[in-house]
């Protein structure tokens, strides 16, 4: 196991985890505002932090990933920050929040994924600050009708109880559970009926994440339903099963499908890269004589392929990568024709 340990990543992950622990101590005012009932969730979060940062750092060290990462930030800070910032914002709103690219793959899939994504993001926004003790609630002294919200120990707002606003805030995790459940149902239906998906799906890659989200959402809703309608008779069962499912989610996050939540924002860097490429010189295919990609991208792919040990350099000094995909296919067909002609027969 230790033979494959990436020391640099382990150090960075350890530092990130230590910073998280310090921020929890500071943010919760030395654990004064920390809720001891959430201690199991806290350890799950701390492990997830180490695992995610470790995997992310290992991932960044791969030559193609590092090239995009470095190039993206370099482009962002070389004089066109406002233009690229606007590009990022557009991409974030349309593709991330709006999830247009997934809707283009299929409407049901797009809406199903959007419900799950929004549900999860809302749940993250509520759960993590609560678990870290960064946010806590309390009754306003001197009465029983007003609640206060504190962030990092500072009061940020107050609201009257028994109002629509109070219901929205108190049930935030229930709303997120409902969004996730509807989304999971849509995605499960697709996985049960779509022949193409059935052929390539796997249990751990495709079904387990859906089942886990469903279990988290149902047990989470169950806690509320239990104390509203069952006088808390099933509280222990609901609370324990909910904690187990959430902690499983946190522990699995660095390894399984949910890691794409962390990895996916790399797409924002690609948006900048593509815009910069489109504004710069274009590569022309020596075979088709047509532009097919940005010169920057062709040069980068050439460099990355070489770094990975692929050498497409030809006798005439050109690289095979300088051809467009269509050009490459034509080169292969021509080479095949030449071999057949040399053998004296076009068919055999």
């Amino acid at each position: 196991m230790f033979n494959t340990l990436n020391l640099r990543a382990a150090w960075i992950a350890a530092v990130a985890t230590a910073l998280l622990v310090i921020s929890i101590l500071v943010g919760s005012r030395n654990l004064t505002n920390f809720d001891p009932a959430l201690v199991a969730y806290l350890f799950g979060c701390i492990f997830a932090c180490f695992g995610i940062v470790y995997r992310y750092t290992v991932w960044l060290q791969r030559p193609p990933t590092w090239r995009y990462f470095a190039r993206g930030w370099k482009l962002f800070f070389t004089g066109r920050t406002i233009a690229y910032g606007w590009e990022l914002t557009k991409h974030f709103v349309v593709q991330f929040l709006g999830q247009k690219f997934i809707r283009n793959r299929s409407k049901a899939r797009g809406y199903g994924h959007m419900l799950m994504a929004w549900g999860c993001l809302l749940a993250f926004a509520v759960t993590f600050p609560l678990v870290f003790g960064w946010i806590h609630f309390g009754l306003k002294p001197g009465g029983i009708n007003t609640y206060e919200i504190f962030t990092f120990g500072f009061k940020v707002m107050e609201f009257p109880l028994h109002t629509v606003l109070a219901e929205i805030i108190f049930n935030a995790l229930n709303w997120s559970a409902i969004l996730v459940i509807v989304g999971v149902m849509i995605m499960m239906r697709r996985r049960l009926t779509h022949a193409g998906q059935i052929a390539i799906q796997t249990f751990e890659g495709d079904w387990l994440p859906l089942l886990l989200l469903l279990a988290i959402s149902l047990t989470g809703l169950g806690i509320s339903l239990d104390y509203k309608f069952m006088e808390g008779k099933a509280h222990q069962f609901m609370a324990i099963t909910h904690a187990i499912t959430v902690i499983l989610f946190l522990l699995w996050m660095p390894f399984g499908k949910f890691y794409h939540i962390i990895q996916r924002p790399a797409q924002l860097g690609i948006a900048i890269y593509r815009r910069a490429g489109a504004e710069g010189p274009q590569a022309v295919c020596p075979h088709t004589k047509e532009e097919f990609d940005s010169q920057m991208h062709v040069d980068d792919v050439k460099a990355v392929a070489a770094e990975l040990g692929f050498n497409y350099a030809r006798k005439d000094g050109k690289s095979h990568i300088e051809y467009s995909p269509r050009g490459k296919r034509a080169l292969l067909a021509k080479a095949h024709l030449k071999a057949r002609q040399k053998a004296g027969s076009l068919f055999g």
Partner: protein
Amino acid sequence: MNTTTFRTDQEFFFDPQRCIGCHACEMACAECETNGQTAMIHVDYVDRFLTTQTSVQVCMHCEDPVCAKVCPADAITKDEFGIVHSANTARCIACSNCVQACPFGVPKKVEPLDLMMKCNMCYDRTSAGKKPMCATVCPSGALFYGTREQITRNRPKSSPVNTFRFGQQLVKTKVNIMMPKGATELIVDSE
């Protein structure tokens, strides 16, 4: 799910010289539901200004797939049968590295989907012991899927070759190209 009857005794053989440009393979490929009804096979005019010759190209499923190596998102994987799968839809960040790096010009970037897609040898069919769609409809024998004995019997004057040389780079593939009898590799160099 997670079960397969992939037939390891069957292989893919293709011969660009036999392509008559009928596009039947494209139509058949679009039937594959794993592609979302998008054709992954390429049928091209080799050099329309000089000749009517067409050529067909499927994914060659390289032993050491450069598309997977240059992918910054770890979205492309090769399975135990040697099938190099289309990009994982959750991971692909649509950078097009694979599109530019593939020496066979196979992966397609589908812009509206922000996704790379490519031939996965009709995994929905081959994993169930069936032949890929394109090979079942090709009328000229440019695309053939079967055993090595069958292809040797059908094409006695040709040899299946799965070694390619692109400049300095040696590429070995799962898919075979039909070459003149006795050939051991195809050298793809200057035009």
